[in-house]
């Protein structure tokens, strides 16, 4: 089997690689997250250019048909890439949520400091700063942390249903 039988396959892969490179050049995707896929596609192109290599490797690994070997490897690598994407997406989600929460809390604090009105949400036209921060406005985190550390949670309280 020669390259002439698989050139369409190699061409398709090359087109996908080309599209990905174009996205990279336009900074629509990052190299960090697309590098693994790029290498994978280059590997697929290599198998199309050198089909004899795929046949030999398949036989070495006990596959009767080279196509079975090819698809098994293909599916395996795609699954790995997908799991990697799930991990990256989950991390990204956790970071986005944490940042959104921080943004909301900081905006609320800024609004209170700027406007002097504790109940006022941040408006696009923020009032001029200048309000003094009083001791009452400062958080008393230490007291709560001390209380948190001092409570023994393993005993059951009386007078209520407890699990």
């Amino acid at each position, binding site marked *: 089997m020669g390259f002439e039988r698989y050139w369409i396959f190699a061409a398709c892969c090359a087109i996908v690689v080309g599209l990905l490179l174009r996205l990279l050049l336009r900074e629509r995707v990052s190299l960090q997250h697309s590098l693994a896929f790029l290498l994978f596609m280059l590997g697929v192109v290599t198998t199309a250019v050198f089909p004899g290599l795929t046949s030999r490797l398949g036989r070495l690994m006990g596959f009767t048909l080279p196509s079975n070997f090819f698809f098994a490897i293909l599916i395996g690598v795609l699954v790995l890439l997908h799991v990697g994407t799930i991990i990256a997406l989950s991390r990204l*989600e956790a970071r*986005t*949520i944490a940042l*959104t*929460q921080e*943004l*909301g*809390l900081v*905006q*609320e604090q800024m609004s*209170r400091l700027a406007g002097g009105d*504790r*109940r*006022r*949400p*941040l408006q696009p036209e923020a009032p001029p700063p200048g309000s003094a921060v009083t001791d009452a406005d400062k*958080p*008393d*985190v*230490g*007291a*709560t*942390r001390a*209380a*948190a*550390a001092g*409570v*023994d*949670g*393993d*005993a*059951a*309280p*009386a*007078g*209520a*249903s*407890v*699990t």
Partner: protein
Amino acid sequence: MRVLVIVPALNEERSVGPLVGDIRAEGVKLGIDITAVVIDDGSTDRTAEVAAAAGARVVQLPKNLGIGGAVQTGLRLAWREGFSCAVQIDGDGQHPPHELGKLLAALGAVPAPDLVVGTRYGNDRQGFQSTVLRRIGSSWLRWVLRVVAGVTSTDPTSGYRLYGPRALALFERTYPYDYPEPESLATARAAGLTICEVPVIMRPRLAGSSSIRSWRTAYYMLKVSIAVTLCYVRSIRRPWPKAM
């Protein structure tokens, strides 16, 4: 005692105003320093303005995070500003503020519980009891929580809760984002927190609609069941620190 009442709200402009008013009135009635904070979870209506006009502090999240992300925002605020405890009251008006006293009274026990859950399925079973389908789902969750996580809860989906200092310390760090109530019970149990239930009377929602409906119910049951199981397995492999 400084209590932060967290009201997660998404497009609740019709119910959030009276709710904040009732919360503040309840604080005066009980003689407790109660601060109401409305977590506006990316509302497109006037929820934030109505809440601010009613006298609440308002944290506006620029994007919708869902109930878990909104509640955790309030818990982080309570933890950072040194509140004695925090109470979660849903913005749809299902949790009447006049029942707040029952949750706070549970803190009087020695030692104080870390997490107090208001249950609508108390002994006398008054008020809103939810639909038949939801009660079947709730039964399943009760079973999963009891068998897998060792948590005996009559109302695992109740969002009417009081978080003590240790619960604040725990959930400030980690809180489930998606359908958090049953999973947070399992997390609390895994961390060695005490969970206490107090019968409360709930109402049907004043406005808005539930986020759990139709096909989402099946997803909800599956997701929560797996999450509770994972929480248990996680606690075996890497136990939570007992003292925080």
